[in-house]
């Protein structure tokens, strides 16, 4: 017991590091641990649901897509590779991809009566306003809003229309009446700036 306790003292990061805890729960979930997956759900569900809701707009559809996303996360958990990103990033990637794919496939088969809603430019300051309480996912939203604030208006518009609006860069080009190449460059420059401002490291 003493030796075990000593080994435990070797922990280098703070014991309550939520990222390490989520990574660990995900690893356990990968071995079929449903309780660990439930803990992982509690940590990432607001990010997943919020992202999906932002893209699909309808709460009912967002719930349906979120349920599918978590089923996929569960199925893929044994293949999660920490090299390819933090658990929350991984969940957000899968959630956004699925939301976008759902919207695009639905829209190709029906009239886009919600076109105006989804194409209205998303202002950066609405980032803070659409979220629920600050504690919900432990994210520093003000930090993201500040980082977005440092982009040029054109970059911010291109990035938010693509990500929060779920549009392809070609669609963004149409919406902004701007050449596709220009939009591609704005998205790239915008993300490079965000990467630096947010000090994202992988």
């Amino acid at each position, binding site marked *: 017991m003493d030796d075990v306790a000593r080994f435990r003292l070797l922990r280098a990061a703070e014991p309550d590091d939520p990222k390490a805890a989520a990574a660990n729960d995900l690893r356990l979930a990968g071995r079929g641990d449903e309780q660990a997956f439930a803990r992982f759900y509690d940590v990432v569900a*607001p990010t997943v649901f919020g992202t999906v809701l932002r893209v699909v707009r309808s709460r009912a559809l967002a719930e349906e897509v979120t349920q599918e996303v*978590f089923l996929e996360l569960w199925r893929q958990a044994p*293949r999660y590779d920490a090299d390819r990103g933090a658990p929350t990033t991984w969940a957000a990637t899968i959630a956004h991809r699925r939301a976008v794919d759902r919207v695009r496939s639905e829209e190709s088969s029906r009239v886009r009566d919600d076109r105006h809603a989804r194409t209205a430019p998303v202002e950066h300051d609405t980032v803070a306003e659409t979220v629920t309480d600050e504690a919900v996912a432990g994210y520093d939203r003000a930090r993201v809003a500040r980082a977005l604030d440092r982009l040029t208006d054109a970059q911010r518009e291109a990035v938010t229309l693509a*990500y929060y609006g779920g549009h392809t860069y070609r669609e963004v080009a149409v919406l902004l009446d701007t050449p596709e190449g220009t939009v591609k460059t704005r998205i790239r420059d915008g993300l490079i700036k965000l990467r630096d401002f947010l000090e994202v490291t992988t």
Partner: protein
Amino acid sequence: MSDDLHHLAAAYALDALDPDERAAFEAHLEHCESCRADVADFGAVAGELAGATAVAPPAALRDRVLADVAETRQERPVVRRLDEPRRRQRSTMLLAVAAAVVGLIAGAAIVLTMSDRGSGADEVLSAADAITMPLEGTDGSVRVVWSDELGRAVVVGSGLPDPGEGREYELWAIVESGPVPAGLFTPDDGSVEEVFDLDPSATSPAAWGVTNEPEGGSPAPTGDILYFAEV
């Protein structure tokens, strides 16, 4: 053509490519390391954008998800081969993972395994299910190659410091119940290649670690983790 593709990493990370372009870019990613790095970075940025728009889902959704989970089979894990070196992980990530793994330890029964020195390295190295794992550490390099099927591990190292008078290095297979002794070794002029028979409880470990221990080894680690890798 491929020049154009390099510039799609950002749009790809935002899911802003048409299906055709997405497929072309994913094919390009297979052999473009710089785009893989960009996608990882931009994906992390997208993750931040996602976190900034978090909304608590309805409580009933949690029950539905967990009900789904209870009756859904998972994918099989991807087994890495010897010829597929992984990207080196950042040490901060490793430390966080080490913390998480070590944090699991709870009153485990530790069994000392006898080590079988000297022979059979090739057998392990060429085993069909062999996995190789470079361990993160400051001095020299250590890698562990093991086969769950054979129940054996090989530790290969170079440039290692002398463990000191009356000391040896001890390899630990870290499983859910805690670290299991996997073998003792002393480098010869900094180099080592030794084969160990693994205790059945030490197969499929979550991580490998190496500590410096008194000669003869310890049933549980007493020194700092000098080398470490999460599986």
